[in-house]
């Protein structure tokens, strides 16, 4: 079965698949990793996949609108938190949104507001605290979250908005501030079985496995918050 999943999962999902194969040795799982936008277009144009895991609700909504997924199978797999990071050896103090206005922060890396989910959430946070206009000149727009991380690591940006799971992967950055849940929409990573799939039973079974505590532990070790943890 083919699972089209957002690229940020390209390390954690194969790990979970290995776990799954221990109790389901006959299972044949192949992955297709790309940005959610590309995956969504592939599915629209008839590329056959069985399960779709997106980095935001936007692409899933689009497919649902075109009746390309089984709505009953749509489930949120994991959550994440949006954090403000600075370079690890930075002297910048402060631990809330006001820090962004500080003169010592000259460049703030964010995902492209229009194309990158992490960027969209960052935009919501800036608007929530009404500082979007004031920060306009400081913003550097990146094509994906990993680029944001890189910019802060290398110091080409003084600060940046990334997911907690990204911040965890790097020793060269530190988290200054965790954005409160109410400052942005829910950061969810939805999964759904595709209506064009010929292996719906298999896909559903693996999706269910992704929601178990076992899989949740692997997600958590990569910085994601399993849905089951919130209950």
């Amino acid at each position: 079965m083919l699972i089209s999943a957002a690229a940020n999962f390209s390390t954690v999902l194969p790990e979970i698949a290995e776990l799954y194969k221990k109790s389901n040795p006959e299972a044949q799982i192949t992955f297709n990793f790309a940005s959610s936008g590309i995956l969504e277009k592939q599915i629209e144009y008839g590329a056959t996949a069985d399960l779709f895991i997106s980095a935001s609700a936007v692409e899933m909504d689009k497919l649902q609108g075109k009746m390309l997924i089984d709505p009953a199978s749509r489930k949120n797999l994991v959550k994440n938190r949006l954090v403000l990071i600075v370079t690890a050896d930075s002297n910048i103090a402060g631990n809330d949104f006001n820090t962004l206005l500080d003169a010592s922060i000259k460049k703030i890396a964010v995902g492209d507001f229009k194309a990158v989910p992490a960027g969209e959430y960052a935009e919501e946070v800036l608007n929530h605290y009404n500082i979007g206009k004031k920060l306009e000149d400081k913003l550097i727009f990146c094509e994906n979250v990993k680029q944001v991380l890189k910019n802060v690591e290398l110091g080409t940006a003084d600060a940046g908005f990334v997911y907690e799971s990204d911040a965890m992967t790097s020793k060269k950055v530190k988290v200054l501030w965790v954005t409160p849940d109410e400052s942005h929409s829910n950061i969810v990573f939805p999964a759904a079985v595709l209506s064009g799939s010929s292996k719906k039973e298999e896909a559903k079974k693996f999706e269910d496995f992704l929601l178990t505590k076992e899989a949740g532990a692997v997600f958590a070790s990569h910085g994601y918050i399993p849905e089951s943890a919130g209950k």
Partner: protein
Amino acid sequence: MTELLYPLYLSFKVAIASTILIFIFGIALSWLLARKNFFGKNFIDVLLNMPLVLPPTVVGFLLLYLLGKNGPVGKILAQSMNLTIVFTLAAAVIASFIMALPLMIRSCKAAFESVDARLENAAKTLGASDWRVFLEVTLPLAWKGILAGLVMSFARSLGEFGATIMVAGNIPFKTQTAPLAIYSTFQGGNEEQAKLLVLFMTVLSFATIWAVNSLSKGKDYANR
């Protein structure tokens, strides 16, 4: 280790297949554009240059539309031969072929145009057939440009990403070529693996092109 080597293996497989196709079609099309006049010639010339100008993602979109299950070509292939191209290595070869062909044509066309037509005509007056003129006069005189085109196409095919990920997918051990593997490992948070892939890729590409350059030295037919 296979996680590192397999993407490189797929990249070379795709690049070699794509370059073979480019060798055949590139030389044929370049020669036609250099030596013949026909209806729509300018239009085709410009069309063949488009993949150079368009972002690879756009070319990828176009290929996905054409070759997908519901697209004009994909539908026919699926219905008549039960053949799917999207998400297979064949799609990766097609993507590389389309993206690299313009480079070959530009180089070969210039090479053919620089061959003195009088030499070809002289051969014809001595009784050589068109085919013999091509093989024994035109090709040897144009071969440096042809080789340059091949090297550029091969290199371009090796590095192809945007169109490939769109139409072949990023499927490890099936269509995940080295550029896609580098992207995946980096996006998945595994920077160390990504760096290793970059290193391997660089060394192999460097060695390949060095080898080709070395082979091409000292065989200058045009200036004997």
